[in-house]
């Protein structure tokens, strides 16, 4: 078995701060390696170090050998395409926005393999059919969905025929059906050479097999055979990672509880760009309960939530807000600011021009909320006092989402639309946020509409499921 890649004590430093502690591994032909771990744990730094794509401010230590020969950065860069390739995280901005799909692939044949124009386009068309994009040759990246863009990226990067493929979070942000195709495609393409994959998705690691390395905040904590690591995880962190995974959910189950109905939806339809997003849907959202809304990406889940908040016009059907009998119809609870929303990408939901403390004070002065309610909520949500002095850019996604929940709680929410609140977070923090949503629904009797793909994150935390 020829050694394609051999890393000995490779580590990455920013100045004198160590971002990735020394790691050694050998990637042999036909035996893939998967690196598991939290987002931001420094995993992708390793791949970038091997490729020679690290930003100038970072420094690599240790020895990187490719095909048995230690190579400098420049030499490695010469191998790009023909010997060594990396699949980027975000497929959309890895493809030239102005170039048609077919020419993104035919370029490789024309300029790397020096084929003539017609031969290159036939080869490209063959590749497109192979990855199931036969008829979208003339489309531009912005006209493709996430899955299609990822498959195009894989096809174009492997067209040069490099044996050694590095894949950095190849399935990020894709729903489960799409992930399956991507993994199969990667396995085929790396059949002659070998594959080093970086992901936080345990299911992918299980399917790929080979060896697994688990990294926690920049340090290698476990290494070994795929089956051994997945079935008998030694390190508690690896165990937490694995059992966060649960079987997928598929059919609508309505809750029979006797809670009061908050919103009653009758054959609602929403139109976008001239076509109806989903067939007429009817369900009711009950107080203090979590309604889990699932469906393919792009089926209009977010639009539905926004419609309930009155942010998006509806095409047909009715949305009636039922004033709960238990609380008298005070003007206070029917006011719009008690119908709130949590966002998918936490930093984009805040302005970075001021500190979180200022944002909080604004809210307090606007609705003259009693400031003494804040400290207990802060401790409940696990938010440290020092956090408030910083602005939203230098605070982690998890903390920001919890801060958003704090702001919502201060307004005694009646209804909360959580639009994929955990998709950008790693499994552990996602679990915490999910638990907090559970708490919000139960303690404040607030109805929550949850949109999420992370089956294993949501787990059992729901009272009814609606499938679009």
């Amino acid at each position, binding site marked *: 078995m020829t050694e394609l890649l051999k890393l000995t004590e490779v580590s990455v430093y920013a100045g004198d701060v160590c971002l990735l502690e020394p790691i050694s591994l050998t990637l042999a032909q036909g035996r893939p390696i998967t690196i598991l771990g939290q987002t931001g744990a420094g995993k992708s730094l390793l791949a970038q170090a091997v490729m020679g794509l690290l930003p100038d401010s970072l420094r690599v230590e240790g020895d990187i050998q490719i095909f048995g020969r230690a190579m400098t950065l420049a030499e490695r860069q010469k191998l*790009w395409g023909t010997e060594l390739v990396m699949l*980027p995280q975000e497929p959309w*901005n890895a493809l030239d926005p102005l170039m048609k799909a077919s020419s993104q692939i035919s*370029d490789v044949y024309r300029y790397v393999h020096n084929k003539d124009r017609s031969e290159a386009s036939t080869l490209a068309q063959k590749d497109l059919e192979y990855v199931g994009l036969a008829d979208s040759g003339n489309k531009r990246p912005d006209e493709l969905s996430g899955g299609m863009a990822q498959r195009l*990226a894989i096809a*174009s990067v492997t067209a*040069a025929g490099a044996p050694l493929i590095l894949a950095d979070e190849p399935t990020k942000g894709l729903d489960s059906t799409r992930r399956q195709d991507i993994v199969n495609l990667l396995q085929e393409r790396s059949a002659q050479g070998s594959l080093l994959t970086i992901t936080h998705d345990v299911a992918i690691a299980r399917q790929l097999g080979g060896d697994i390395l688990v990294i926690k905040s920049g340090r290698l904590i476990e290494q070994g055979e795929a089956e051994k690591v997945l079935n008998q995880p030694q390190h508690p962190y690896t165990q937490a990672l694995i059992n966060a995974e649960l079987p997928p959910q598929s059919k609508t189950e309505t809750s029979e509880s006797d809670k009061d109905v908050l919103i009653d939806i009758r054959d609602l339809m929403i139109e976008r760009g001239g076509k109806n997003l989903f067939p007429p849907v009817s369900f009711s959202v009950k107080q203090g309960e979590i309604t889990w809304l699932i469906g393919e990406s792009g089926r209009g889940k977010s639009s539905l939530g926004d419609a309930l908040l009155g942010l998006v016009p509806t095409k047909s059907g009715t949305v009636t807000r039922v004033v709960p009998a238990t609380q008298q119809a005070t003007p206070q609870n029917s006011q719009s600011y008690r119908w709130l929303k949590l966002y998918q990408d936490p930093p984009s939901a805040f302005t970075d021009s001021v500190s979180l403390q200022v944002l909080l004070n604004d809210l307090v002065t606007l609705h003259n909320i009693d400031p003494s309610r804040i400290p207990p909520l802060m401790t409940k949500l696990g938010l440290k006092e020092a956090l408030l002095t910083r602005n939203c850019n230098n605070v982690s996604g998890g903390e920001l989402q919890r801060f958003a929940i704090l702001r919502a709680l201060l307004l005694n929410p009646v209804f909360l639309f959580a639009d994929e609140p955990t998709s950008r977070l790693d499994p552990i923090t996602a679990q915490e946020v999910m638990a907090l949503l559970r708490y919000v629904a139960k303690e404040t009797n607030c109805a929550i509409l949850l949109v999420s793909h992370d089956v294993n994150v949501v787990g059992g935390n729901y009272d009814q499921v609606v499938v679009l």
Partner: protein
Amino acid sequence: MKDILLKRLLQLLAVVWGVGTLTFILMRALPGDMAYRIAASRYGHDNVDAQAATLVREELGLDANPFLLYINWLFDLLQFKLGDSLVSGTPVIDSVQHMLGYSVLLAVTGLFISILIAIPLGLLSAWKGNPIDNAVMAFSSVVRAMPVFVIGVIFLMLFALHWNWFPVAGFGTPAHLVLPALTLALSLAAVSNRVVKSSAQRVFKSSFYTFAQVKGLSKWRTFHRHGIRNIALPVVAFFGIQLISMIEGIVMIESLFSWPGIGHGLAHAIFARDIPVIQGAALIMGVLFVLLNTLIDLLCYWIDPRAGDVKGERA
């Protein structure tokens, strides 16, 4: 594509009506007796007197009520008749066409040379980074801070007087056009090379650019296939905008190089209250502006078919 043309056609009509009416009202609001002003331009500024003014007033019927004048001006406009210049009597079409022809020639040549200067400078400072980038930045800031005629004089002293390569002023042969166009080009390039640099830097740093190299394309091939087209997008749009702000520079250059352009002609027409010439000139420049911008829009659309207001954003 069709909606771009439709939008521009609508704009064309609005511009023609708007520019015409605006100049008409503004001209009416000007102080000073129009008959005297026109007489001054007709008979020479030392030779104008009451007799000349009364002659002009009778001949042109300037005392008619303005609203009536406006109506039959609009009526003439519909038949593409722009009337005759009050001062020289020649049809407005000819005099404006003569003046505008030279100005457009100067503007187009100036813009073209400024493109040849700005693109290499911008790319170089984006590619090579700081020592060159700062030098180009300093140079651009200084050129932008100077009135255009100072650049003109420097070129004149150097190329026309010192080395005697080009004529100092006047028009007629291509050699006359070189120095004015070069002056205009330098003043334009000082601004546009910064736009080229920032656009190039954005593209060089973008992940699809590195991904293209990861695919195996060489540095030059990546630039050739992915760089040029992506960089061109904001740059072409910027050149379109620059077309408008060019007029201040052109006025100075025309006056310094005695170039028979519209800039100077327009200033004289306004002093002399030659209303048909002003309206004709403003109208034709307005139409020209709309046509050129339509051309720029089509070019942008051809480069980046993702129409929509926000360029460069993922749909």
